[in-house]
């Protein structure tokens, strides 16, 4: 292919991305690095403000716990799916369906379950396990549940893709050498799916620190995360600089996570 044709084919994408993504980002974020001249003062201020710090750490904490839970539940489930034959595509469809369902709908589902008059409280009350309804909604707990619910299917689908590349004969070989199912899982399947687990975890973690609708609907005004905070600063308070600072912090968190995990993943993948 001639270089001119090549350039012609990629030019529209390059131009659109430059004009409508990178230029706006630079224009929006540049002011956060100046305070009568180049300065990191706004970032220092952000990280010394106890409210911002609390939001930052709540975001990270929820993302970490959600990632771990998705990992712990996702790995065995994905292994279960990848070793089915007839029911496999049905189970995959069942995992993909929530993924394609609107996040607002998915958060709404948990409002119905966790609310004061929600399904869970009514069940517990009718069984007599509690006497007054529990406050489950608009807490860190409800954000966490919603986040896990949002990203567990993503973890499962990613892991099934990774586990499908493990030949069945390899696990059979392990069994024939005397490894029980459980030992085969821990000694063969788990090490071989580590790269997939890393990829899935990155997707869940970066997704969790940037998700908007779930913390907005399940967290309420008191339990802000970075994504809801940025919207509130910008739209309700017209505090453009804080919004820009938060935006840049989120970009850095995403990029750093992806880069670190790429390094880790390359080291883990010994195949």
């Amino acid at each position, binding site marked *: *292919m001639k270089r001119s044709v*090549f350039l012609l084919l*990629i030019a*529209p*994408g390059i131009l659109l*991305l430059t004009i*409508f*993504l990178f230029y*706006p*980002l630079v*224009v*929006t*974020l540049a002011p956060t690095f100046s305070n009568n001249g180049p300065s990191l003062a706004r970032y220092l201020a952000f990280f010394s403000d106890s409210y911002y710090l609390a939001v930052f750490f709540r975001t990270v904490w929820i993302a970490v716990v959600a990632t771990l839970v998705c990992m712990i*539940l996702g790995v*065995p*489930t994905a292994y*279960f*799916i990848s*070793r089915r*034959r007839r029911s496999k*595509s049905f189970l*995959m*469809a*069942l*995992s*993909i*369906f*929530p993924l*394609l*369902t*609107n996040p*607002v*709908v*998915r958060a*709404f*589902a*948990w*409002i*119905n*379950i966790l609310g004061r*008059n929600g399904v869970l409280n*009514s069940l517990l009350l009718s069984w007599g396990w509690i006497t007054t309804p529990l406050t489950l909604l608009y807490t860190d707990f409800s954000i966490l549940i919603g986040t896990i*619910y949002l990203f567990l299917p993503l973890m499962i*689908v990613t892991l099934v893709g990774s586990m499908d590349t493990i030949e069945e004969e390899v696990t059979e070989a392990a069994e024939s050498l005397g490894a029980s*199912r459980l030992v085969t899982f821990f000694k063969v399947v788990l090490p071989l799916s580590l790269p997939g687990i890393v990829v899935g975890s990155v997707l869940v973690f970066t997704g969790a620190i*940037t998700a908007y*609708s779930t913390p907005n*609907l399940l967290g309420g005004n008191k339990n802000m995360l970075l*994504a809801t905070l*940025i*919207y509130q600063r*910008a739209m309700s308070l017209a505090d453009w600089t804080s*919004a*820009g600072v938060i*935006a840049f912090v*989120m*970009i850095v968190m*995403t*990029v750093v996570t*992806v880069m670190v995990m790429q390094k880790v993943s390359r080291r883990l993948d010994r195949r």
Partner: protein
Amino acid sequence: MRKSVGLTLIAVVVFLFLTVPLIIITATAFGEASTIRFPIQGFTLKWFTATFASRSFMSSLGLSFALASYATLLALLVGIPASYALSKTTFRTNPRLRAFFLSPTFVPGIVVGYALFQFLVIQWRMPVFAGLLLGHFLVSLPYVIRVVGASLEQFDFSIEEVAWSLGCNKPKAFLKVVLPNIGSGIVAAFMLSFINSFNNIPVSMFLTGPGVSTLPTTLMNYIEYSYDPSVSAISVVLMGVTVVLMVIVERTLGIGSLAK
């Protein structure tokens, strides 16, 4: 296949966790009470008729549909030639170019929305729809690059060379030989990009304007202020659309094509 009890148990719990909330929503859409109750009392379709009669829901549904279609088409128009160029050549800069095309995935949606809001809406005073379209295009492009790129990697380019040797010019060979053979990749990219644009919240949050709102943002604002089964009814409609799309994909490409 012999079964392992522990594994089966975990999988059952996980699938219950994934499906029960959606089943509950579905059930509550048919309850007669004016607030959401589960288990439901009575059976009615009035929330569905109310939804279809609501002008704000219907107009936002139309907007979301148009937006997802146009954004996806734009992403395909821009993304397919770029993927083709990247897979046909081996320039040293190609990996970096590919990363550039995928870069919107590294920028949180809410940040994309915020930057575009500052730039397009406040500075340029662009029409709301144009802003939304550009934002959704940015969200869609990486799907196209990734999925179409993957199917071009599988494509045997000697077939294209055969077409040239038979007297087909290059644009024609691309249209008649390359495109049909990466068709499944394009359909998968279309579906993924359409659904993700249709469901998108963070980008749209900043870019919707007075009277112009996508369905997810309308739904979200509605949920924040009121709590009645019409939200369940809309959810059921949305899930129904998802089911239809999944059935189409399953019949044409196999459901696995969305998981790549």
